[in-house]
């Protein structure tokens, strides 16, 4: 059972949409912790509800089309039944929390979204400079929250990427 589940969502071929995937990579490579599970995906899916239901904390990472480019927004969220019809292309974190509750009878006590404002979703690989520069802050935000929550001294101090 993962205490903290980090779900990163994005498309590596759509410019800044890949920012969540890069944050996930940074977390996995530089900050491994047995109680933290990091998963990267193109999109959120109903099948993720089971893993979510078993976590104590879940953090959904994604690029934002509306936030200021490079800004990092970390916000608590609650389950919501206001869902799309299809459950295939546009499932959102709040609906997924509600689905975990409906399917498995439980959902994480603490749920957050971490959104990074994107500059461009054009068809290309690689992030814009502005968004790339925001990765250390995003990683730091997540680790700081987890460290605080679990009071784990064994975390490494996040290394800022030049």
């Amino acid at each position, binding site marked *: 059972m993962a205490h903290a589940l980090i779900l990163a969502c994005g498309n590596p071929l759509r410019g800044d949409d890949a920012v969540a995937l890069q944050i996930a990579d940074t977390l996995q490579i530089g900050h491994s912790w047995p109680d933290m599970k990091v998963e990267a995906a*193109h999109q959120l899916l*109903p099948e993720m509800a089971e893993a979510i239901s078993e976590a104590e904390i879940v953090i959904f990472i994604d690029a934002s089309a509306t936030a200021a480019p490079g800004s990092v927004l970390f916000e608590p969220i609650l389950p919501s039944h206001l869902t799309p*019809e299809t*459950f295939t292309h*546009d499932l959102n974190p709040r609906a997924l929390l509600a689905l975990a509750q*409906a*399917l498995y009878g439980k959902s994480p006590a603490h749920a957050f979204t971490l959104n990074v404002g994107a500059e461009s979703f054009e068809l290309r690989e690689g992030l814009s400079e502005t968004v790339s520069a925001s990765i250390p802050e995003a990683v730091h935000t997540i680790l700081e929250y987890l460290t605080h929550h679990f009071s784990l001294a064994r975390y490494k101090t996040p290394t800022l990427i030049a």
Partner: protein
Amino acid sequence: MGQKIVIDPVTRLEGHGKITLQLDDQGEVSEAYFHVTQLRGFEKFCEGRPFYEMPNLMARICGICPVSHLIASAKACDALLAVRIPPVAKRLRQMMNLAQIVQSHALSFFYLSSPDLLLGMDSEVAKRNLFGVMEANPELGLGGVRLRQFGQQIIELLGGKRIHPGWIVPGGVNEPLSADKRDRILKMVPEALAATRQSLTWFKRIIENHREEIRTFANFPSLFMGLVSPDERLAFYEGDIRFTDARGKILADKLDPARYSDYIGEAVEPYSYMKFPYYKPMGYPKGIYRVGPLARLNLVDRCGTPLADQECAEFRQLERGAVLSSFHYHYARLIEILFSIERIETILNEPDILSPHIRASASLNELEGVGVAEAPRGTLIHHYHVNEEGLMTSANLIIATGHNNLAMNRGILQAAKHFVRGKELNEGMLNRVEAVIRCFDPCLSCSTHAMGKMPLIVELRAPDGALLNELRRN
């Protein structure tokens, strides 16, 4: 003055489509058109690329059934290499294809269609989703999620990831199956089988509630087409092409899939980017045929596994000849899930399944290659031409949804004539017209090789083309 209804966008589909219903002077539906309004152009932009890139590139056509494109493309590349792939590689490819059948059918049945089947076509729109299913029948909802998970986990275990796995390559697969992975998959089988059988029992119980839909949802005589194995069973990976007629009689058999252009023609219509394939000997549009789960079960007398065979026999009792109502695509889908799980278990228990001999190597030996397999929605054809350097000079793809294009259009007309009355549209009418299309589970992104969000629109138009009413869902 006649009028026209437009449904735009059609919802709970994999793709972006629009329906136009033309009314006559009496206010009755006289014509129906299903427009596929997106264009992607994979056939064009692969030109000039090396052929060995094709399996990975073509898999990007779809995020739901990338494995089908991967398989058809790899088979076309096998033909370019002129190799016979190792038997175990074939089994492993088959297993991944079956896993995809399970996950894609589960998505169609449980996520997209079960709300209508369980809650009713006229139920509250806000409830017609997986939450509504969970509230009304938690076991059904959870079973659906489990089945999709089952298929996706197998794809992930074999290919390294759920979407766009790169494990299937020209000449075979690039990594043998490990004992650990085999055992992990086998462990999941009993729960998947139980969920499927439970869902079939439930479906057979509620089927009587949908008599009107069974009667009016694309229920008409047509041909059926698909692959059949040499021993007359369901064939998803390889086989010969068979056409049967509406009475269930074999019209053409043991056709070489690579020579598809001898018997399949492709027409175009100005209102859609999706082509209109037809059976050439009967001409266009008389050569209308259907593919996919309903067609596949109409083509064979048995599936080839014990539980699925029992269900197939019961299914074939629905009608004297072929089962004609497209509503029964749902039923057929559940039987194919059952078959796929049983077959996966059989393959995993074969003694040589962990063999390391999984790939044949060769350089380019042919300048033309065709790969054909059964995708969840029907027969999928990839046809490539390359130059002496192995660079693609042309590609033609015939996608399952395309084969069903004529039948979907005719089905929409049939349902609209029955359910749509006059200028006033209500949600239930609209949902039934959409639900006809959902029976076919069309993947519009595949059929036009398109990308993007996938809503649907319905328009009501007068005979002079004037727009009278429009319903739009995003």
